[in-house]
């Protein structure tokens, strides 16, 4: 994939680009809520891409990934809200958030270096919860996080007089954030692809495939694993910062275990290791509940005259069913990594 794009690919790419640019205006016709939903979907895509580095590339099963999302969110919240009276601009906070989250990733990764698979999953799960509980309790004796009440009145992104939260003409706040998110997403995809196809990326995959052989081949597995944790976490930190700004409010309950599991499900469902698969998984899983919310209720009302099944219940049912089906029919994910697909093609031939 390092070669030049073919004409057909270029055309496809242009179509996708136009569609993505036009998307918020189309969605806005259905209601600004849909633009917001899309923004959250993009945030989840970012998170999934970050987790994909840890789980998909390096093969380290991380069940506490939301902790880094939380770190990024709180870094932004603390540095741009009346809570401490700090109002730094977002372009300085986002890198700080990424760095702090990356550091947290390395620090939390360090004790787990000898663990793999289920054991690693349990420990990271614990770390994820520890971070959330920290946020919950760090209001005493010094009020850092404001505890369960969370931090409010967080600054939106602002460049001079141009605020991302206010409407300016046809561009509503969410649409502005959408474009910003799209840019960040583009950058993250490029970074991911370049990493995947590099010395470091190969070392990650080598560790996933056979850690002992990787060591014997001269890879300092400790450093390379920490690097995977840190890189993955820093993407989570960036996503967290944007989450803070878009919401204007953070509290510990946004960072529960369920979110970690959801992000992991996006990675697994889409196809571990494959960037496009992970994106597809994240988009699918973040839109599905909203689609259900908007279709199940009216559909039931029209059919039976009243609500029989709560959309939330139905969502979990469909979600579980989809995962079971994926495991049965596409164990490597909907859109698996090329390596695995190549393998399947060969078997067919």
């Amino acid at each position, binding site marked *: 994939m390092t070669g030049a794009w073919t004409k057909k690919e270029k055309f496809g790419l242009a179509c996708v680009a136009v569609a993505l640019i036009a998307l918020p205006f189309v969605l806005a016709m259905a209601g600004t809520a849909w633009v917001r939903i899309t923004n959250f979907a993009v945030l989840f895509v970012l998170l999934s891409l970050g987790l994909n580095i840890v789980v998909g590339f390096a093969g380290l099963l991380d069940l506490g990934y939301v902790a880094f999302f939380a770190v990024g969110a709180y870094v932004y919240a603390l540095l741009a809200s009346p809570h401490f009276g700090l109002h730094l601009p977002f372009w300085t906070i986002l890198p700080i958030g990424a760095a702090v989250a990356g550091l947290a990733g390395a620090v939390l990764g360090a004790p787990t270096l000898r663990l793999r698979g289920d054991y690693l999953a349990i420990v990271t799960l614990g770390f994820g919860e520890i971070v959330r509980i920290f946020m919950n309790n760090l209001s005493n004796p010094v009020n850092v996080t404001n505890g369960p009440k969370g931090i409010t009145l967080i600054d939106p992104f602002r460049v001079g007089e141009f605020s991302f939260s206010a409407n300016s003409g046809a561009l509503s706040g969410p649409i502005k954030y959408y474009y910003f998110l799209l840019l960040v997403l583009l950058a993250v995809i490029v*970074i991911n692809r*370049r*990493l995947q196809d*590099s*010395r*470091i*990326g*190969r*070392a990650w*995959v*080598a560790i996933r*495939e*056979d850690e*002992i*052989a*990787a*060591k*014997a*081949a*001269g*890879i*300092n*597995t400790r450093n390379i694993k920490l*690097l995977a944790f840190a*890189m993955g976490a820093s993407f989570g930190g960036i996503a967290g910062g944007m989450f803070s700004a878009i919401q204007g409010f953070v509290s510990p309950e946004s960072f529960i275990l369920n979110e970690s599991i959801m992000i992991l499900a996006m990675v697994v469902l889409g196809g571990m290791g494959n960037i496009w698969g992970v994106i597809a998984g994240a988009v699918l899983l973040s839109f599905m509940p909203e689609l259900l919310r908007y279709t199940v209720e009216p559909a039931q009302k029209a059919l039976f005259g009243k609500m029989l099944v709560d959309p939330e219940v139905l969502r979990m049912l469909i979600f579980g069913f989809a995962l079971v089906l994926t495991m049965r029919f596409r164990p490597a994910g909907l859109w698996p*990594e090329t*390596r*695995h697909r*190549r*393998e399947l093609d*060969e078997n067919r031939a």
Partner: protein
Amino acid sequence: MSEVLLQADGIGKRFGGVQALKDVSLTIRRGEIYGLIGPNGAGKTTLFNVFTGLYPRDGGEVVFAGKPLQLDSPHTVAAAGIARTFQNIRLFGNMTAKENVMVGRHVRTRAGVFGAILRSRAERDEEAAIRRRADELLHYVGIADRADDLARNLSYGDQRRLEIARALATEPQLLALDEPAAGMNATETAGLRQLIEGVRKDGLTVLLIEHDVKLVMGLCDRVAVLEYGEKIAEDVPDVVRNNPKVIEAYLGTSAH
């Protein structure tokens, strides 16, 4: 031929109550093919794993290329110039043959995260060099036509060759092969033998664990024999072959 490449002194290793290696000392000279044989469970692979930093040793020192060898982690051993293969082949199954070899270049290359993200000039040059070297090595071991196949789809013999190519990619001075001929048929073994001789001709030293006594005796310049974790002989093949202790170790003593 006579310069010492690796000097091991008094290597000991204990697993719980089992003394797997007892005070093993041996000398490998630069440019030779050094065989390590012994009955099953004699401690050959254990010694290998100690030499390559996979097992922590209980005692003893190793001097490699004139310097004390840091044995605490495999990657420092690889960096020092010892590369190995495994008895039960350990490849990166879901990577292509070429990528496997490219991973071997890791220890001799520098590019980090930022180089990769920015695709700096240095990084691109390095990547190109890595690819080039990987192609050369695949060609060298004779599997250039399988470069883009997944490692796990390669035939058994080709996997062995690929493992050697990956080891060679780390630019070792000593190539340590753990039973490379295990499970090979006669033709494959003959090909392997040619490959090992070629490696030596290109200036590398080879440490070889092997069960195929014919291969060892025909190929090695010197042979050490381990039994119950102790070295019982070390000499040229012809002398070792007639050493009563060695015969005893392999065949047992007569009843009277």
